């Protein structure tokens, strides 16, 4: 790939989705965009690039952006963020939201839905204790195909075996040939919508808990800080943020601080230090 083509594509991607590509990732562009070029009726990636330059077609730019997303996800990924949700966040919310009994949770780059559904499983298990409460779980992503899959709640045999306890498979899935369909009562606990993290969060409203996992890793430093600082603004002082295992706020923003001994969980820096019970 010519250096000017690499520059063209990488600046397009950075502008549209925040994705930051170093020149050593040329192979990634080639391996993901060549199939797209073929699907779009072009002979090669060069053809696709030429078309993009010429027409600047919105549809094609979207397709390129979507094709370059990494959508890997699995149920209860890294486990701790879901244990902490059950053991720390929910008990805290029960006290702090006793007046409104309303809780809003945002999975900010939810891909094929395993993350918000894992939270739904946790809530479902405690259903009896939350009778008159209203939980809203919103899953968003920039890529439409993964959202479509998330909504359908259909997973392969491989996907249902990564992180999902067999008891939950038995309880909440139905086998349909080679695939497994998530039950309606779990699916209806989560709302999915298309959303780009580079866009203004105002339309989403405020949240009590944000899961923003394994997406910031693709952004450069200033985009990471920008996203996190805007997230701080839509979280109350007693809200909580979860990042992926390979991500941190350290050196990126001072609006959040890690919670000692509780991997992946971050609280607003100016919040009461004693909000969460100490880890047992």
């Amino acid at each position, binding site marked *: 790939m010519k250096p000017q083509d690499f520059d063209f594509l990488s600046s397009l991607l950075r502008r549209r989705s925040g994705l930051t590509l170093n020149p050593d990732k040329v192979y990634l562009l080639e391996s993901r965009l060549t199939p797209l070029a073929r699907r779009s009726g072009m002979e090669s990636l060069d053809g696709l690039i030429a078309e993009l330059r010429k027409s600047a077609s919105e549809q094609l730019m979207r397709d390129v952006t979507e094709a370059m997303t990494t959508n890997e996800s699995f149920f209860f990924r890294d486990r701790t963020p879901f244990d902490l949700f059950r053991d720390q966040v929910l008990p805290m919310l029960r006290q702090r939201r006793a007046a409104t009994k309303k809780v809003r949770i945002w999975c900010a780059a939810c891909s094929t839905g395993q993350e918000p559904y894992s939270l739904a499983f946790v809530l479902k298990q405690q259903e009896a204790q939350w009778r008159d409460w209203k939980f809203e779980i919103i899953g968003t992503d920039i890529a439409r195909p993964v959202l479509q899959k998330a909504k359908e709640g259909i997973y392969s*045999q*491989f996907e249902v*075996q*990564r992180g999902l*306890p*067999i*008891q939950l498979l*038995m309880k909440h899935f*139905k*086998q349909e040939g080679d695939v497994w369909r998530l039950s309606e009562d779990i699916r209806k606990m989560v709302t999915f919508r298309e959303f780009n993290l580079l866009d203004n969060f105002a339309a989403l409203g405020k949240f009590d808990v944000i899961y923003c996992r394994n997406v910031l890793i693709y952004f450069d430093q200033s985009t990471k800080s920008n996203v996190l600082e805007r997230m701080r603004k839509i979280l109350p002082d007693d809200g909580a943020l979860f990042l992926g295992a390979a991500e941190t706020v350290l050196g990126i923003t001072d609006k959040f601080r890690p919670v000692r001994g509780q991997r992946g969980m971050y609280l607003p820096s100016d919040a009461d230090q004693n909000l969460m019970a100490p880890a047992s």
Partner: protein
Amino acid sequence: MKSCLVVDDSKVIRRVARRILEELDFSIEEAVDGKDALGACERMSPDVVLLDWNMPVMDGLEFLKQIRGRSDLRQPVIVFCTTENDMNHIRLAMEAGADEYIMKPFDREIIEAKFAQVGLM
């Protein structure tokens, strides 16, 4: 180091499972059917049994029922690992006292995830 008894009548499967589990730091014993596995359990008392369903002599479910009835033996964690991939089989296995259930084909990631599920990692 935890010990795992791999029970499968296929030599190929036993070899694949052994390689994955050794990488995950388990010590491995092998058995070729349920009866062989019972003998191995009496001898070595494994921490976990990775158990195929369809085997000659004694199948996995029968082994599971028998070992769960043996109060004289230390009870291992039992993870089924089988091509029987329908809800009926899963139910039968769980009701008979299995701890987890893997539907073949499996890979390292699935084994790791399932073993983590039952507190082995």
